């Protein structure tokens, strides 16, 4: 697992109040019991952890390039943003 993946899973696990092992890459946020407030809080935590700007607007969650359809998708999107910032 990459460094980014580990950190993202840690953030999502904390938000979902789950153990890290229980956050599977294929899971959706809904599967993990993360609601809309939990989602924006996770995005905030990701921005803080990686010092990046996540293009996400809660009014159009599916718009933009930031894919939140699964844990794996979020990791991939964050890896992209981290690479762009480097």
């Amino acid at each position, binding site marked *: 697992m990459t460094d980014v993946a580990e950190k993202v899973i840690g953030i999502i696990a904390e938000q979902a*109040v789950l153990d890290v092992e229980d956050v599977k890459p294929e899971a959706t946020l809904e599967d993990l019991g993360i609601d809309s*407030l939990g989602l*924006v*809080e996770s*995005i*905030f935590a990701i*921005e*803080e952890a990686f010092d990046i700007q996540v293009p996400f607007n809660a009014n159009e969650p599916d718009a933009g390039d930031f894919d939140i359809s699964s844990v794996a998708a979020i990791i991939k999107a964050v890896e992209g943003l981290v690479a762009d910032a480097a």
Partner: protein
Amino acid sequence: MKRVVITGQGTINALGANVAATKEAMREGRCGIGELEMRDLDRLSVRIGGQIKDYDPEALFNRQQISLYDRFTQFTLISAREAIAQSGLVFSGELAARSGVVLGTSGGGMQTLDENYRSVYEDGKNRVHPFVVPKLMNNAAASHVSMEFNLKGPSFTVATACASSNHAMGQAFNMIRWGMAPVMITGGSESMLCFGGVKAWEGLRVMSRDACRPFSANRNGMVQGEGAAVFVFEEYEHAKARGAEILAEVVGFAMTSDAADIVMPSKQGAARAISGALRDARLNPEDVCYINAHGTGTAANDKVECAAVADVFGHHADELMISSTKSMHGHLIGGTGAVELLACIMALTDGVIAPTINYEEPDPECALDVVPNVAREAEVGAVLSNAFAFGGLNAVLALRKAI
């Protein structure tokens, strides 16, 4: 017109983390005001307050709740839990659909504002936590009470500075009285003891640097406090039918506006509110045994308040007792009337009048029985609670012993 009774009370403030501890402190004339603990204290010239010490939110709220609840909301929920548990009410069905919450606060989520302004202005951060708005909004506390207890009727927040709680409780009283709701959860909360909150008050130059000494000739200003008190106001027949313990009856309320000055109090405005509450309660002046004063400990308030009481009560002003419990818990601004209502209820239920502590020198302009320094036992039938806000907004409640 329906009768309105109080069937539950709860609090957390500098005197205690619940009603029993607060009443004991008031009975003993204990002072909850001390050295403030906060960041950048060395940049403040006012360094005392009625701050809640040894407070552990993690023991009462989970992590998700703490990330959503400003300190003023936490204080409100702690108080609401105690009050509603005492009342024995569980809100479901028709009762839930018609019952609501009306609370007072002046600053709302001031700690949240302070922390986040610091973060973006001082620390230069460009990102704030997503819950800043839902934490700081003035109605956050009322909304969280509605959610925790399933209250689906009329709920809102009243902000009238130092009279916020009295105005809120006055609304709750009248809503039940006119049949709009069978039960209202009411009171108020404040948590302004943060750097910006104290600094703002400091600017006005009305704060004492050593103690709150209401009515004493050597008084030198007010002292801020923090905390909340919440009550269950219930329609009398509803309470009686379920065999609830009735703590006191709310019998009258009046509000007036000075329409004069943004900070200086007015004797006429205060007197009109006091006499209005008596009229609304159908009480004769002689019926009132005790007044919980606004009694801020400022030069202006205390003499104006005593003059207003003397005007309304005439000779009876010398017979009644009037004390300011702000001397013990500090001025909770938007939450103050709620915490002070605890002293009013204690007078009615326990026959104990909370004292005005730190009283050192008589002031001829405050020549009333201010219950100096030591609590007093007295058989009390009816009481008033005064609140006179900056902006000249006055709100007075009248309570009677439960019968």
